């Protein structure tokens, strides 16, 4: 009875909040407050796919969401990235009928790494997809090691399918500790972008089993690459799905003789897509469906999103060194003169510690074609100093407001890029949209 009352209150509060133009996770918070056991009292769809990891969660979740619609009639998903327990509670309760059944035949949920234990304890997840673990928001999540061990402990009793990136040692170690799960690895072959050495901030230099230094045949980016422990063989895993013939210029790659289109010309996008293909294979969704999906997929939520303010502006989210490096590499492939706006905030969701900008390779931007860099956000000066000490010699502008930064950008006429941390992203989208022609 209590569960039904809770459900009614949640539904009413959701309705009232929607009148105020609000919503999001708040109904979930109310639900958990009224009945801490509410998630254990509802009946779930038979397929629940959980996506976690540091970078690419929202993009991957949205791709999986669309993929599952090829197989299931009614798929639900927290596609906006409300990935904490309250957000997931809100998603399920929103779709729960008064008979306490979730009205869906499949759920795809993006889950924040630290919330994985809370979710697995309550929700009968059938598949878990993990792409990577990078250094991220040390102030909130603590050292990466503690994040991975929390996820690892939560998976110890997990009995479903575990789909793991075989090229990330921090992800691969989960196979050792998830003894009851069925593990499927995916990876990406060496290609023109692969490197012999890596100078990018990396975690997991040492073998998880025996502490020996890991040896890489090649790196793709950050610490992602073909690694193995020379002492105990950690990392030598059979791949369930392996991408080959990666061609970033043509935005294509091959899995099992089928050519796929990459949603972006970046290696991290190939990994996201390969994880998706592994999931398709595992759920018997034909590759032709995946091909069609990847051909047209666009997230448009501040990830490679374009605006036209008289000229094209490309907006990107950055939140940790690895993500920032990949975005900067992408920008610098443009050989033309360019202007870059960088918005650095330090609110809770951005991470209150901005020292990560010194772990990221802002040296990538130091180039004669980078004409102007405009720094904005609460930590604009930290960003400006980062560039000064990297030896950036173009025009370095500090703008105290985000609106002012775009006004500055409008005065210029080079190729335009905006990168913003989490809490600045939606504001920047609004400002850019307002300035669209």
């Amino acid at each position, binding site marked *: 009875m209590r569960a039904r009352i809770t459900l009614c209150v949640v539904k009413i509060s959701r309705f009232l909040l929607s009148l105020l133009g609000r919503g999001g996770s708040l109904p979930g918070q109310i639900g958990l407050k009224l009945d801490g056991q509410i998630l254990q009292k509802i009946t779930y769809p038979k397929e629940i796919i959980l996506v976690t990891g540091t970078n690419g969660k929202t993009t991957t979740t949205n791709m999986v969401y669309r993929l599952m619609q090829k197989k299931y009639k009614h798929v639900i998903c927290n596609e906006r990235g409300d990935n904490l327990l309250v957000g997931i509670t809100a998603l399920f309760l929103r779709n729960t009928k008064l008979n306490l059944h979730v009205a869906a035949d499949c759920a795809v949920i993006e889950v924040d790494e630290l919330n994985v234990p809370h979710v697995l304890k309550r929700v009968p997840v059938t598949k878990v997809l993990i792409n990577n673990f990078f250094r991220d928001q040390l102030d909130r999540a603590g050292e990466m*090691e503690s994040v991975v061990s929390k996820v690892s402990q939560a998976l110890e009793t997990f009995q479903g399918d575990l789909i793991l990136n075989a090229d990330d040692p921090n992800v691969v170690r989960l196979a050792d500790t998830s003894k009851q799960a069925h593990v499927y690895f995916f990876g990406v072959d060496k290609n023109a972008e692969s490197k012999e050495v890596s100078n990018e901030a990396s975690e997991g230099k040492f073998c998880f089993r025996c502490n020996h230094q890991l040896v890489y045949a090649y790196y793709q980016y950050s610490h992602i690459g073909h690694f193995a422990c020379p002492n105990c063989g950690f990392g030598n895993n059979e791949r369930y799905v392996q991408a080959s013939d990666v061609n970033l210029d043509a935005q294509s790659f091959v899995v099992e003789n089928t050519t796929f289109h990459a949603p972006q010309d970046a290696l991290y996008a190939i990994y996201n897509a390969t994880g998706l293909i592994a999931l398709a294979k595992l759920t018997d969704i034909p590759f032709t469906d995946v091909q069609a999906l990847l051909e047209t997929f666009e997230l448009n939520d501040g990830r490679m999103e374009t605006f036209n303010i008289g000229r094209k502006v490309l907006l990107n989210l950055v939140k940790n060194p690895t993500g920032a490096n990949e975005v900067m590499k992408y920008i610098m492939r443009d050989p033309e003169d360019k202007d870059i706006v960088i918005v650095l905030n330090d609110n809770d969701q951005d991470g209150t510690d901005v020292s990560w900008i010194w772990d990221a390779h802002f040296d990538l931007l130091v180039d004669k074609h980078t004409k102007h860099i405009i720094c904005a956000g609460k930590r604009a000066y930290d960003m400006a100093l980062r560039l000064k000490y990297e030896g950036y010699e173009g025009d370095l502008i500090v703008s105290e407001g985000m609106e002012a930064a775009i006004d500055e950008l409008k005065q210029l006429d080079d190729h335009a890029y905006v990168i913003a941390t989490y809490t600045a992203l939606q504001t920047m989208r609004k400002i850019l949209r307002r300035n669209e022609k």
Partner: protein
Amino acid sequence: MKLNVLWMYHDVMDLYGDRGNMQVLKKRCLDRGIDITIDTCGIGQEKTIKDYDLLFIGGGADREQGLLYDDLVSRKQDIMDAIDAKTFVLLICGGYQFFGQYYIDNNNNQMEGLGIFNYYTASDAKVGRCIGNIEIEATLDGQTINIVGFENHGGQTRGVNHPLGKVIHGHGNEYQGGYEGFYNGQVLGTYMHGPLLPKNPQVADFIITKALAKRYGEVQLAPLDDSLENRAHEVMQKRMAGG
């Protein structure tokens, strides 16, 4: 003038952007025509520390710190020799903890320190993690300097006879402790990340002066344009003061 820096465990103790400190020292030297060389030293690499003017060790993750422990202990005499030879030492977070008596981590594992100084560090589950922006007033050889940064440490460091400075905002060596870091005229240890030096150009120059003193005695550094650095410092100071 030449300045030779040894950056120890650059590839392991590289959390929280501490590498930024090296970039700041480098540019501030080069801009003044000081010929600075930054040499790195990983686990097992042979280096004679006393040949350098400045030794730097940053912070690392618990697991990584544990892995370099044996290597560090084997260099104890070498480090003592360097201190005797007037090499200046800059230590951040984990590096700072190592120079004390011992370190007890979250899981109650005790790791002996180099024991060069009397202070000791223990995680204390009863008090919180010291995390957030921090501002201190330091006295460096009689010079009063305001320093801003970011701290993020679970370890509580006690028994510090010569703290670096008094905490104005934040925690310092201990949760709500009042004092931050360690400074004895030749070794400067601190929990301040951010990294420490970009927003604190006075500290950067102080360290350069101290390191140059080993070979050149008292040196007067040419002034640089620090308007961006000072503004960055001021913005954080104002924020912490709630203004």
